[in-house]
């Protein structure tokens, strides 16, 4: 396997990104797609938007208490893959998903599986902060309300407080919980969205470029937060910032035109990329 892998490296190192774009000399993911303690296991996932093949045979594990970073040039399918993990793609007309994705051993694309509770288990934070145009309190309480997670007002208050604390927002908003969430700054809004997500106690949190609309200081706060959240949750994060991937993640997956090119320990991928495309990308030759 290792010998084969290095064969491929040697093989593909001669292939430029442009060549790959033209017709694909891609011949399988390099690196270990598995982790010892996986939370979600994806095998040979394919996604089509109509005729467009957006994700091709991607296999990847999302480890327990681990942050997996997904990087790659724009349009390579990072978001698409991420949205497969909580069946958010179901809402897109013409989007088809094939392959196997399991959460704790259970196939999430099973006919009988209801995506509604799944999304409570696999929460999502979006690229642009999207708080509900309701109060800060209601934003955080909403998930608990619809799922009936709390039995009393006091419990709900406590849940909102702990969620906001975990999201590092409590001190900034505790005096104005009744004010609209949309009135917060961008970074605060994104942390509010994180609080909203963790209020329903998900097992996995998906983050799609959560800092791309934020300034550096807000970004730093959220990165710190992600590191703390790892203690309780498994996290898959899409980012276009390589520094961010390096800072917050333990494993990194590099996508290119719908293929998962390389997966590995973050330090390894950034210091010693094994695929020419990965190397080109992280050294900034394209992206």
């Amino acid at each position, binding site marked *: 396997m290792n010998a084969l892998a290095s064969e491929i490296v040697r093989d593909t190192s001669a292939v430029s990104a442009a060549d790959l774009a033209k017709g694909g000399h891609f011949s399988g993911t390099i690196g270990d797609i598995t982790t010892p303690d996986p939370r979600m296991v994806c095998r040979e996932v394919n996604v089509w938007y109509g005729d467009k093949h957006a994700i091709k045979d991607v296999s990847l594990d999302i480890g327990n208490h681990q942050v997996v970073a997904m990087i790659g040039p724009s349009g390579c399918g990072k978001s698409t893959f991420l949205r497969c993990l909580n069946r958010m793609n179901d809402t897109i007309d013409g989007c088809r998903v094939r392959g196997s994705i399991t959460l704790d051993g259970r196939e999430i694309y099973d006919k009988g599986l209801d995506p509604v509770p799944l999304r409570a288990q696999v929460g999502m934070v*979006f690229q642009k902060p*999207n*708080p509900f*145009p309701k109060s800060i309190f209601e934003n955080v309480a*909403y998930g608990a309300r619809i*799922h009936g997670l709390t039995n009393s007002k006091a419990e709900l208050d406590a849940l909102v407080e702990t969620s906001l604390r975990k999201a590092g927002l409590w001190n900034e908003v505790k005096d104005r919980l009744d004010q609209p969430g949309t009135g917060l700054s961008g970074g605060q809004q994104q942390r509010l969205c994180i609080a909203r997500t963790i*209020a329903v106690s998900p097992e996995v949190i998906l983050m799609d470029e959560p800092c791309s609309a934020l300034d550096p200081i807000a970004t730093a706060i959220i990165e710190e937060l992600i590191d703390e959240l790892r203690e309780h949750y498994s996290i898959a994060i899409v980012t276009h910032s390589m520094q961010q991937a390096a800072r917050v993640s333990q494993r990194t997956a590099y996508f290119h035109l719908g293929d998962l090119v390389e997966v590995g320990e973050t330090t390894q991928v950034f210091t010693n990329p094994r695929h020419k495309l990965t190397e080109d990308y992280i050294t900034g030759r394209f992206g």
Partner: protein
Amino acid sequence: MNNPAPGASAPPPAPAARRTIDIVNASLKRRYAREARFRFMGAAAVFLGLLFVGVLFGDIVAKGYTAFAQTYIQVPVYFDSATLDPDGSRDPQVLANADYLGLVKASLRTLFPQVTGRAQQRALYALISAGAPQQLQTMVRQYPSVLGTTRDVWLIAGADVDMLVKGQIDRELPEADRRIKDSTLTLVDQLKTEGRIEQRFNTGFFTNGTSREPELAGIAGALAGTFYTLALTLLLSFPIGVGAALYLQEFAPKNRWTDLIEVNINNLAAVPSIVFGLLGLAVFINVFGVPRSTPLVGALVLALMTLPTIIIASRAALQSVPPSIREAALGVGASPLQTQFHHVLPLALPGIMTGAIIGMARALGESAPLLMIGMIAFIVDIPQGITDSATVLPVQIYLWADSPERGFVERTSAAILVLLGFMVVMNLAAVLLRRRFERRW
């Protein structure tokens, strides 16, 4: 532009390649001129539009404002117990059936003893409206104590006197061309000098049903009919329209069938309203046996007519809710229905309501389809429910506009004013709603 540097002798000609700023400056004048022309044309168009609206409104107001006043004539009436209540029983039944027309005539004869002869007397009686006996009857039934006394009573003037007092009959015309003859003129003049003629606010216009006599005709019946019809229209078309829009926009699969439905909804919005009337006649009245001329069948037809408007407006409003809100709700595990009802619908509601109000305003002004289903009948009684025969304001206007009497002309215009007032209020409400709930995300 290419100014030579001061002091430079024989400046070198500008280089062939002019700087961008020079090119821009050169074209600037033309661009500004074009902009000024465009602005002028825009302002002129707005002015012209306002002018037309102003002329229209001015004309209607000028014709209609007099209808809000009504001429009254003060007549001393002797409520003779012997004729009105011969047994002295004060039985309401007897009092109701007494001869009040005779009472009016007798009072007028007492007031003008000089008028003799049948023709002259008929002219005398025409001074007072045919509604006067009703007025006296109401008075006696309410206050039986007037029996046996003489009271000065302000009676509604007849339509011709009303018109004369309002200056709408030209007394300079030769007698043959005038609706009021010279003899009547002298009577009116005498009443005037005695201070027995007065104009008062015309409450009857708002409390009476329609009538053959212009001075008695009011819009209460039409208003009630309009109210029942529109309320029911809203009740039917709003939930159905919003539901259909919600389903089509958010839940229905996008395929050839839904495309076909969408095209047809857009077509329906453009169908002439009278076609809906024909449909109502053929389906609701002839097939389902819904009683004709009623607000019920009117509302069914108008609901059909406003449905496409509401559906289209609602879909546009739903579409304008950013997808990020839906994703946010779905992302925490809200079901599609919860997503719609908790988040999308509240945000779309101002747009939906604006659409609904515009649809209702259109329904309010509609007469053509209602003619087809018999809401054009002459109905004096004020409808008490959705299954009573009724007419609506636009149809009432149409009916009055058809009447030759001068008195109906001013009432037509006054009714139009009332209708326009409602329209303005509804459109204002639409604008305010939009302002009030301006996008909050």
